[in-house]
C-alpha cells in the first residue's frame, strides 16, 4: 500500500494532462449556450421605429429567422451590417434586437427615443439595412434572458420559435458557411 501511495502524484498529473490535452482543441471563448433548443423567453417589447407595436414570441413565429443583437455603438455590429444585408437579399429573414446601452442618470444622460430612431435610420441608410424590423430592448431584459454577453450575437430561431443556434461574434461569409447556412437551410424544409 505504502509503495502505491508514491504513485499518486504521477496518476494525478496524468489525469490533469488529459484535460489539458482536450482543452487545447477547444476554444476557451466558446461557451455552451443555455438557451439552445429552448423556446424564446417570454417578452413583450416595442418596435424601434413604431413604438406602439409590441412584439412577443408568438408574433414572430411562423418562419425561421435570425435574431441579431446589435447597436449603433458597437463597431463590430456595424461591420457586419453589409454582409447581413447581402443575406437578406438572398432571402434570409433577419430581425434586429436593438441593444440599448445603460443610460447613466448620474452623468446627466436621458433616453431619447426619437434621437435613437434617427441615428439607427441614418446608420442603416449608410451601411445597408438587413432587418425586417427592429425590436427595442431598452432595459435589456430579453438580452439578459437570452444570455447575451455582448454585441453582436445572433440566434437562429425556427418556425416554432425554438432557438436552434447561438452565435457569439460577428457573422461573415466564413462563419455563415461553416456554422449557420446548413442549419438555416434545414429549418427551411
Amino acid at each position, binding site marked *: 500500500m505504502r*509503495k502505491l501511495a508514491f504513485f499518486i502524484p504521477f496518476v494525478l498529473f496524468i489525469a490533469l494532462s488529459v484535460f489539458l490535452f482536450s482543452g487545447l482543441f477547444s476554444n476557451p471563448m466558446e461557451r455552451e449556450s443555455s438557451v439552445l433548443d429552448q423556446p424564446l423567453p417570454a417578452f413583450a417589447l416595442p418596435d424601434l421605429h413604431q413604438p406602439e407595436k409590441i412584439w412577443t414570441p408568438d408574433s414572430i413565429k411562423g418562419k425561421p429567422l435570425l435574431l441579431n443583437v446589435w447597436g449603433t455603438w458597437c463597431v463590430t455590429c456595424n461591420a457586419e451590417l453589409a454582409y447581413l444585408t447581402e443575406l437578406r437579399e438572398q432571402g434570409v429573414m433577419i430581425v434586429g434586437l436593438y441593444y440599448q446601452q445603460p443610460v447613466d442618470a448620474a452623468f446627466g444622460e436621458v433616453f431619447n427615443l426619437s434621437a435613437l430612431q434617427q441615428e439607427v435610420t441614418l446608420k442603416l441608410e449608410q451601411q445597408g439595412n438587413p432587418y425586417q424590423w427592429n425590436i427595442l430592448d431598452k432595459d435589456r431584459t430579453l438580452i439578459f434572458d437570452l444570455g447575451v454577453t455582448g454585441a453582436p450575437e445572433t440566434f437562429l430561431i425556427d418556425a416554432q420559435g425554438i432557438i436552434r443556434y447561438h452565435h457569439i461574434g460577428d457573422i461573415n461569409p466564413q462563419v455563415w458557411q461553416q456554422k449557420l447556412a446548413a442549419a438555416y437551410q434545414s429549418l427551411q424544409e
Partner: protein
Amino acid sequence: MIAEYGQLALTFALCISLALAIVPLYGSFKGQQTALQLGNPLAYALFLLTAFSFWALSYAFWANDFTVVYVATNSNSLLPWYYRLTAVWGGHEGSMLLWLLTLSGWIAAVALFSRSLPLQFQGRILGVMGLVALGFYAFVLFMSNPFERSLPYFPVDGRDLNPLLQDFGMIIHPPMLYMGYVGFAVSFAFAIAALMGGKFDSTWARWARPWTLAAWLFLTLGIMLGSWWAYNELGWGGWWFWDPVENASFMPWLVGTALIHSLAVTEKRGTFKSWTVLLAIAAFSLSLLGAFLVRSGVLVSVHSFAADPSRGLYLLAFLLVVVGGSLLLYALRMNSVRSQARYELFSREVLLWGNNIFLLTATLVVLLGTLFPLVHKELGLGSISIGEPFFNQLFYYLVIPFALLLGLGPWVRWKQQQVKPLLKPMSLIAIATLILALGTLATLQSVQANLALLGLLLGAWVGSSAIFELLQRLQQFGSVKQGLTKLNASHFGMTLAHIGFAVLVIGVAMTKTYSVETQVRMKAGEQVELAGYQFRLVEVYPLDGPNYKGEAAELDVSYKGDYVTHLHAEKRFYTVQRSVMTEAAVHARLSRDLYVALGESLNDDSWALSLYVKPFVRWIWLGGLLMALGGLIALCDKRYRRRVGDQKETTELKDTTDA
C-alpha cells in the same frame, strides 16, 4: 545579417544543450571523469551563445529592423529606445528567448558555484538541466523562432509594442519572474539528481537550499512588480486579479515557499525526505504548467500570447516527459526511503509540517480555481467561471491558522518543545498584539471592520513574535550587540521575511476595508471630496507623445483645507495599436495612496474621473519587498559558501539518516 548570426548562435546552443543532456549524465553512470568534466565548459558555452543570440535580437529592435517578423509585430520606429529594448520580451518568441537566457544563466551559475560538489552529483545536475534546456531550445528554434524574416516583402514600420507593456514595471517584471520560474529548475535538477543516485541523505537538501532561496526571491520580486504594474497601468486601483496567469505564477511561489521550509527540515533533521523531493518537483512542474497555460491558449486571460495549438501540443508533450518522467522516477525510487528521525507532537517539525499543509492547500485552491472551468467544460458540463470571491473566501480561511502557526513556529525547538517555557513569551506577544492592533484601529476615524481588525491582529502577532524571537535569540549570545555579529544571516533573513508577511497581511486587510472610490463628472475648476480629501480639477489639456496622443488632467489635492499634492493623470491613445491606456496619477504615502484615473470626455467640457483613496496599499508591496530582502539576507549566510569538506560542523544535530 546580425539576426542570422543570432539564429546561428541559437542553433549551436541547441546542439550544446543536446551534448549537455547526454555527456555528463553518461559520465555519471559510467564513472567517466572526462565526460563529467565536460559539463562545466558546455554550460558556459550554452550561456555565451544564448547571450549572443539575445543580443542579436535586441540589436534588431534597436536598429528598427522590420524585416524580422517579430520586431515588426512588437515594435515601431516611434517607440522610445528603452521600450524598444524591452519590447524584446513583449511577445511570445522574444520572451521565450529571454526564458532561454535565464535558463542558460542558471545553468552557468550552477556550473560556476557547484565546483565543490562531488563531480558525479554535479554532472547529474547539469545533465538534468541540459535535458530541460534541450526541450526549450528545440521549442524556440522550431516552433517560435524570433529571428524569422519576412523578406522580400517587409513592412515599412512596425505594429508597435502593446501599450500595456510600455511601462517601467514591465521592463523588469518578466526578467524577474522568469529568473524565479526557471530558477526552480535548479532545485528540480538537484532533486532529480538525488533520485538518480538513489542515496538519500540530507546533503542534497543543504546544497539545494541557496538555489531554492535565490529562485524564490526572484519570483517574489517578479510577482510583486507585476502587481505594482497592474495597479499603475490598468487604471482601476486593483493590485491582484486572480487572473489565470497571475495564478500560474502564484502556484510555484506557494510551493516554493513550502519547499524552502521543508528543505530546512530535511537538512537539519534528515526527515520529510520524500516530501521535500516531491515539492522540488512540484515547484518546477507548476512553473512549466504556467508556461503551458500562458502559451497554449487553453485559458482566457489578459496575459495570453496568441494561441497556437501546435505550440500547446509541444509544450504539453514536454510537460508529460519532464513532469511525468520525474514523478514516475519519484514513485519508483522513493518508496524504499524511510525517515527515521523522531519528533514529538509539539516540535518545530510538526509546525513546519503545518506550514506545508496550509501552503499546499492554498496551492490546491488556486489550481482548482484556475483549472476547474477548463475541466468542467471538457466534461461537457458547460462553461463556468471562477472569480475573486471564491479565492478571497478560501484564502481568508487559510491565512488565519497559517499566521497563528507562523507566529509560534520560530519559538519552537526541533524534536520536542515543552509547553511551559513558551507560556510567558507567548502571552507577552499576545498582549503586544492586542495593544498594537487595537491601538492602530483606534487611530482610524471609522472603527468598523472585522477584516481590518483580523488583519491587524494576525499581522501584529506574526510581526511582534518575529521581533521578540530575534531579540531573545540575540540575547543568548550574551548581549544583543554580540548577537548581531554572531547570529546566522539566515536567521535574520527568516525574521525579516516573516515581518514582510505580517506587513503584507496588514496591507491587504486594511486596503480591502478602508479603500474608498468614486466615479465623478468634473469640469475644470470643480472640486470633489472623498475621505476628507478635496480633489480639484485644475485643467485638462491635450498631449502629444512620441507614439501616442491623449489628454492630461491636472488636479490639486488638499486635506481639510491644507494643500497635499498635485496630481497628473493621463489618458493616452496609442495611434499604431489604436488602443487607449490610462496612466493613473498616484500620490503614495506609507499610510495611504491617492489615485486618480482620467476617464472619458463627456459633452459640455466635462470629464469622467475615477478617484480612489487607498489606505495602506503600499504595505502590500512593501511586505513583498521585505520577504524578498529576507531571502537575499538568508542567501548571504556563510554556511552556504562553505566547501563540502568542512561542512561537518553544520550537522551538529544528529542526522538519523538511513542508508
